[in-house]
């Protein structure tokens, strides 16, 4: 009786869930990419992370901040894993404002690995004003802040199209298949051959979009590899312990004439 009821329960729930597509018909589902960091043992593609950082630095960083990341993160395990020298060189290539000094003056100095990523604008208002009234969001946790995650970010990057007939766009507004409402204020910044990859990979739009999305996925979840690795160990440990406790329980309960 209970079993048939549970079946009924599951069926009615499935029915409800199948109603779901009624809700949002105007938006196109993001492209599903087989990311290396998906799944229980997923890891980031190191080379892709390094290339993605290059795309971020040369293209995205002129408008988007990543204020929660530090240059040292680039050398930490589970990330792009640049060498110590490379991280120092990357950090030193930025002029960071520091101070006040003993005279009360602010000054600039070359960046250090402990510095946070330098933001392109001093504040949100400045960023908004410089970009036609649309604030380019901070990208530190962008992948976690969008429904669809990495798939969505990648899709938007490759989703620029000419607007369908009948759709008129204001100046500074672009048509994007995957963006909510199909209107986006970020221009299509990627074009084939835009960056010259240090490792010689051909920089197609698709390649750059994948690389920078991988980089952003890591930026949002720098703990991902350690989390996956620890998770597998924790689950194995718990399963073994559960088996032992189960056997102990059976043994203890064999003393009474009752089922467990």
């Amino acid at each position, binding site marked *: 009786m209970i079993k048939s009821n549970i079946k009924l329960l599951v069926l009615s729930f499935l029915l409800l869930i199948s109603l779901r597509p009624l809700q949002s018909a105007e938006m196109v589902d993001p492209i599903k990419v087989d990311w290396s960091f998906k799944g229980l043992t997923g890891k980031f593609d190191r080379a892709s992370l390094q290339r993605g950082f290059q795309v971020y630095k040369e293209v995205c960083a002129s408008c988007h901040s990543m204020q929660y990341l530090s240059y040292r993160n680039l050398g930490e395990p589970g990330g792009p894993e640049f060498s110590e020298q490379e991280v120092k060189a990357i950090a030193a290539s930025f002029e960071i404002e520091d101070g006040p000094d003993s005279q009360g003056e602010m000054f600039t100095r070359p960046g250090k690995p402990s510095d946070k990523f330098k933001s392109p604008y001093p504040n949100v208002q400045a960023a908004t004003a410089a970009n036609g009234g649309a604030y380019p969001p901070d990208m530190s*946790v962008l992948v*976690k802040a969008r429904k669809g995650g990495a798939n969505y970010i990648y899709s938007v990057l490759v989703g620029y199209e000419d607007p369908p007939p009948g759709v008129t766009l204001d100046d500074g507004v672009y048509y994007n298949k995957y963006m909510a409402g199909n209107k986006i204020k970020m221009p299509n910044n990627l074009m084939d051959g835009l960056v010259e990859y240090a490792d010689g990979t051909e920089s197609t739009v698709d390649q750059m979009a994948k690389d920078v999305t991988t980089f952003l996925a890591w930026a949002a979840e720098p703990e991902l590899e350690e989390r996956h690795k620890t998770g*597998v160990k924790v689950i194995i440990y718990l399963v073994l312990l559960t088996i032992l406790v189960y056997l102990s329980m059976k043994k203890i309960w064999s003393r009474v004439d009752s089922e467990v």
Partner: protein
Amino acid sequence: MSEHEYTPKSKAGKWFNDRLPLLTLGAHLTDYPTPKNLNYWWTFGGILTFCLITQIVTGIVLAMHYVAHADLAFASVEHIMRDVNYGWLIRYIHSNGASMFFLAVYIHIFRSLFYGSYKSPREVIWIIGLMIYLLMMAAAFMGYVLPWGQMSFWGATVITNLFSAIPLVGDSITTWLWGAYSVDNPTLNRFFSLHYLIPFLILGLVVLHIWALHVPGNNNPVGIDIKKPSKDTVPFHPYITIKDAFALLVFMIIFAGFVFFTPNVLGHSDNYIPANPLVTPAHIVPEWYLLPFYAILRSVPDKLGGVILMFSAIFILFVLPWLDTSKVRSAVFRPIYRQFFWILVIDVLMLGYVGAMPAEGIYLVLARVGTIYYFLHFIVVMPVVGYLEKTDPIPMSISEPVLTGGTEPSLARKVNDKV
């Protein structure tokens, strides 16, 4: 409850126990006679205790690094995620722990509904349990505000605005709750303070909940009283402790699955966008465990009516022991009520589902039907079915084999007998 008086063996133990009988309490908890037929639905009490302790411990650590300030809260959470050693683990345990806590408490509540555990003589256990549940919802709601993301901010705005529906003094109360003229830094500060306080109130109520439980003892799947303690019960330790431990471990595997492999699946992506009072999210939704009540709230076109109905949905549970007229506790022997129980389960799941959807079209219709049934179940179905239903024969005692319908009358007792 102990059948024999406990005396410590050592002299020092006796000296201490005469002054503070902690050892007697320990002996009582170990020997506590527990029905031997408890099934796995009964393991959620222990699981819930584990959840509470986990939330308190991880919460205390998080509070060491968190900054309750509107300008710094979001960044401090990212600091925890990135710079604090294993901060990501502690935060993900805490945020997923809230969901696991509610998952367990809903199973615990529905178990009580199925087996009639709220009925005499356990009404006080039930009422204390509901108070714990109410405090849990308050704590979870305030905790969700602390990261100061978009859903934090707008969830807080929607929920606190409910109080403005109160006639005459509504707006004053809302301003008083906010400590400002909108949800702002003072709101965040007080929510943090209360979020830290409430778990300890819950802990106190849990002690009372267990104390009240140990007066009549556990209910059990057949829902009848213990006849012969020697035959019907087992000592709590080691029988129940090992069984609870096993169930807890299975629960922990699922918990770990969420924490390590899909830590954000139960949350809303908008909460990784810093709070912005100028941008309203397309859909403001609470966490999943509050969705059925959210659906009830939105099913009423009138704001005050919605608020009243939403609070009634919880407070009606307080009088449940007196709405249920059946003399039989366990739904195992209640063929009609059992059907209605499962309809209620489906109804609540459906309300939860439509609570996550925009309040329009088919979803609004479903929300209204679901809300009406929810109240009908408690106000009409429970009293009427309890009165009219012909229940199945119930066994003489826990240790007697469970009867199928129409066996020897010597073993089966009539429903009308006092259970």
